[in-house]
């Protein structure tokens, strides 16, 4: 099979994470590999949508600009995992989690493809971007649950709590940033 774990997990998240949990050596997912894959795709999509092509400087800078994304995700995973289990190895959890970005990678690449191919990109983007993003959000939560449940062996209730906590913590990090920068508060209470 040609497909990587990132692709396979999108289609069969639970069986995929079971198999990934058994992988060892060169076959096991890595934290760096998962993070680089995500940031590379983000950089490519930013370059493509902003410059209309794979402009190297835009790609390179965006890869670093968005480095906070996997960092925030790992904080959320760490907090959620430790809330439900003291024994699951954190590094292993991070590596498995970062293998599950497939839904977001697909959504981002689809958005870039629309920009390059659609005759009227704005109108098509207005139509397809919301369902793409919402779909990626929903399916990525399924993968997160599968990661906790089958990848890390948590019971279903603990995996559910961890998934919910992960979303809450991640949302809190994002909201906390915008509140700290003074960008969100005035929109809410002024």
């Amino acid at each position: 099979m040609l497909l990587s774990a990132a692709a396979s997990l999108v289609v069969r998240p639970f069986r995929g994470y079971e198999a990934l949990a058994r992988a060892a050596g060169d076959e096991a997912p890595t934290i760096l590999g998962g993070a680089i894959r995500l940031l590379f795709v983000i950089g490519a999509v930013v370059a493509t949508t902003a410059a209309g092509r794979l402009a190297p400087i835009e790609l390179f800078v965006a890869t670093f600009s968005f480095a906070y994304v996997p960092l925030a995700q790992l904080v959320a995973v760490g907090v959620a995992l430790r809330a439900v289990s003291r024994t699951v190895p954190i590094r292993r959890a991070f590596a498995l989690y970062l293998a599950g970005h497939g839904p977001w990678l697909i959504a981002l690449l689809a958005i870039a493809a629309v920009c390059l191919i659609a005759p009227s990109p704005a109108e098509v983007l207005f139509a397809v971007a919301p369902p793409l993003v919402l779909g990626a959000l929903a399916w990525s939560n399924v993968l997160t649950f599968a990661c906790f449940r089958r990848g890390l062996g948590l019971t279903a209730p603990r995996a559910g709590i961890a998934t919910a906590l992960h979303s809450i913590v991640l949302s809190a990090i994002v909201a906390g940033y915008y509140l700290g920068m003074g960008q969100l508060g005035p929109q809410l209470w002024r």
Partner: protein
Amino acid sequence: MTMAARRARGEERRASISRAWIIACALVVLGLVGGAAFDPRPERPVVRRAGYRVLEADFHMHTTYSDGTLSPLTLVRQADRRGLDAVGVTEHNTVLAGRLARAWSELTGGPIVIPGEEVTTGGYHLIAVGLETTVSPDQPIEGVVADIHAQGGVAIGAHPVKRFQPGLAPVRAELDGVELMHPIAFATRNPDWRWLDLLTYYEETTPRPAAIGSSDYHFASILGLCRTLVFVHEPASAGAVVEAIRARRTVVLDPDGRLLGHPELVALLEREPYVPRSSDYAYRGENAADRALRLLGLAGVAGVAFLRVRPRRRGEAKAGAGPAP
């Protein structure tokens, strides 16, 4: 380890990289080559009319400091690529991004970057151009405008759709400019954001503020889509641009190409037409090679993301999802 053993191990490692993944990497390289080759820096010729220097400007854009997708550095680069002479980097409720962008532009010889802020509240959005310190939105709007003016900046009503007009009402007569050209003139998802409301607001505001066109850039290719022609005294500088806005020496083009703004300057441009620089907002590409290379590059990115790096070894069990790096 002998040389032969080392060589054999190296060959084994090379053979362990899947051919499909290597092809995907090659496509990415092709895409990057195209991205560099077809990304020229256009000329920004010096244009004068009636003793003024005419600058093309965009006063409303965001970066990765808030909800934009470009960093201050690449925002300056893209503004340069789109033939903008002056830009206001107006992050939500902070001037930090604008100051970074200015430093980078001065270092690299880019466009004039004027630090600013989009004072963003639930009731109004106000573009402030020409700031050095952040103006707090946690005060009445009269205080916001006073702070902007105290710093020597100008206050521009941002996309004054019906929803934001009540919030701007206390300072309407003090606005230095009003955004009457905005990308909603071309396409919008929100039926309550109507371009004609912006035009009406501008025409009914007294005293008449400066006509401003801005892209409100967050994402995609619309940087500079709506731009302002600013008539400045030379030498062109951030201060000259701010002075020109304060003196209302601006003109914008509506979607039909009609000139709107300072009456004398509109008449001048009708006698001596000026065509603003355009950019490839619709992703048409430079030519067939550009279009082909960028698609190949994107396909390569998808391949790098979704293909196995190492082929499945002989005898490896076919699980639901084969583990792969």
